[in-house]
């Protein structure tokens, strides 16, 4: 299913933080998990993902370490305390936004 990209782009950071709040992942794993969970709606390009991950790491939201998995060395990302704080803020913003959109569109209330 295709959706307007502008809806997706602003929330990519929040989605990545959400994935990493559940478990540490490497880049390729994040793209795959995001695709599966969103039922192919969010098909994130690697060229978008890595600069974003590096920016988040620079801002202290993520930490990085190397680990061997399936016979290969992979660069894993883990969320920091700062990252969890940003995730909470982004989720609150998103819920406020979603409630407002539903209200305007005339749907009954409920959490996003």
């Amino acid at each position, binding site marked *: 299913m295709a959706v307007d990209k502008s809806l997706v782009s602003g929330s990519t950071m929040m989605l990545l933080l959400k994935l990493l709040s559940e478990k540490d992942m490497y880049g390729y794993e994040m793209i795959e998990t995001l695709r599966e969970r969103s039922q192919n709606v969010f098909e994130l390009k690697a*060229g978008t993902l*890595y*600069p974003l991950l*590096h920016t988040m790491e620079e801002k202290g939201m993520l930490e990085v*370490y*190397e*680990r061997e998995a399936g016979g290969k*060395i*992979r660069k894993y990302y*883990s969320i920091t305390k700062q990252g969890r704080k940003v995730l909470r803020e982004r989720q609150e913003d998103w819920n406020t936004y979603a409630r407002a959109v539903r209200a305007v569109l005339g749907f009954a209330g409920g959490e996003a």
Partner: protein
Amino acid sequence: MKKEEYLEILTEQIRCKMARGAVAEEIRWHIEDQTEAFLSEGMERKEAEEAAVREMGDPVEVGQDMDRIHRPKMAWSMIALIAAVSVAGYLLKFGIERAVGIEGSGWLRSGRQLQFLLLGLAVMAGICFVDYTRIALRAREILIVFYLCLVTGVLFLRINVNGLHLWIRLGSFGSVGIVPLLCLTVPLYAAVLYRYRGQGCVVAVKALLWMLPALGIALACPSLAALVTVFYSCLIVFAVAVYRKWFRVPVKIFLAGTAAAAVLCPLAGCGYIWFLGDTYQQERLRVLLQFDFSDGNYRMELVRNILGQSRMVGESAVFAEQAKGLAMSEIMITGIAGYYGLAAAVLLAAAVLALFLVFLRISLRQRNCLGMLMGCGCTAVLLVQTLTYLAVNLGLFSLGSDCPFVSAGGSSTLVTYILLGILLSICRYQNTAPEIRKFAGMFRAA
């Protein structure tokens, strides 16, 4: 487009060469994962790799994004803070020396100090452009050569002043202070500890052995200030490495052991002097331990008199009467309190401490482990020096120590700016030399 071609175009966009390797490696792993996924869907290898590369997006765009992130960034705010504290320290010092009427020669002359201040700032600017991570590659060799140079200097080129050997003669270049040079061993010590990450309990012995030559040289001078600065700075560096779980050791036991060493070693030293030392050493210790400076130590008496009667703003009568013609370098903060008032002394001390605490915070937040520990080493030296100097200036004890930005001395001024240069280099390259910990949990902070 082939994988190697894609990676070459991408990394060419990243201007900082030291950042290219890690970025290329991560992207390469991603392309390989994607290629395998396409292979499992039934594609041919060549077709799968090309499709995986296409999935990556435009290499120029990705490379430019990476370039923006992985670029050396000058810590201008810290440079401005350093410059401001340097100028404030110099001007206050200059005023004090004029007030007490010292027209002496050598390091105490303000013009000479200005030269060293400017030279120090230039050296700092030069060092902050140097990639500090190169030091780690040869840390042990550099520290051994440095120790050998110091030992040679102390044995053959020392200058004897009243039984103290605190300077090394450098022919027509003048002389250089041994105490400031010993301070430079601490960041090198940190770089050596970095090489021992992942080792077991034997690391405690190694950490001690690498510290011993510096302590031995400090004892040979002899300089209690150097002994205190190097010993406590190295202990702080070791404790930080242990706390960050760099070594396979029981963290709590090792931290408790380090704290015990910090308390027991000075006590053991005092005990040795008390029972086995020379008479003059025992006398000094007695004065030090009783906090009684009334018999003989005019400087500590002066410190207490000035502080006791200083005003919040403006010159105190005690300073005007008693400080004329005296060398104030080791009690400059007290002098500032006496001449300008307590407010100026507190402000200067707070500014110097705040600057170093900010550097400590920056160092502890470094992702690069080497940068983190070397930064802690540099700030530990500067903080220990400052706190010791402040204790002397509060009349707590007498110790011939130097203070960054405040006390006089060409060598100590230059070493202060070398340490600041290393700290600025760590700030500058923090996004270009990110550290990758080998395994989750092994090196992670507690």
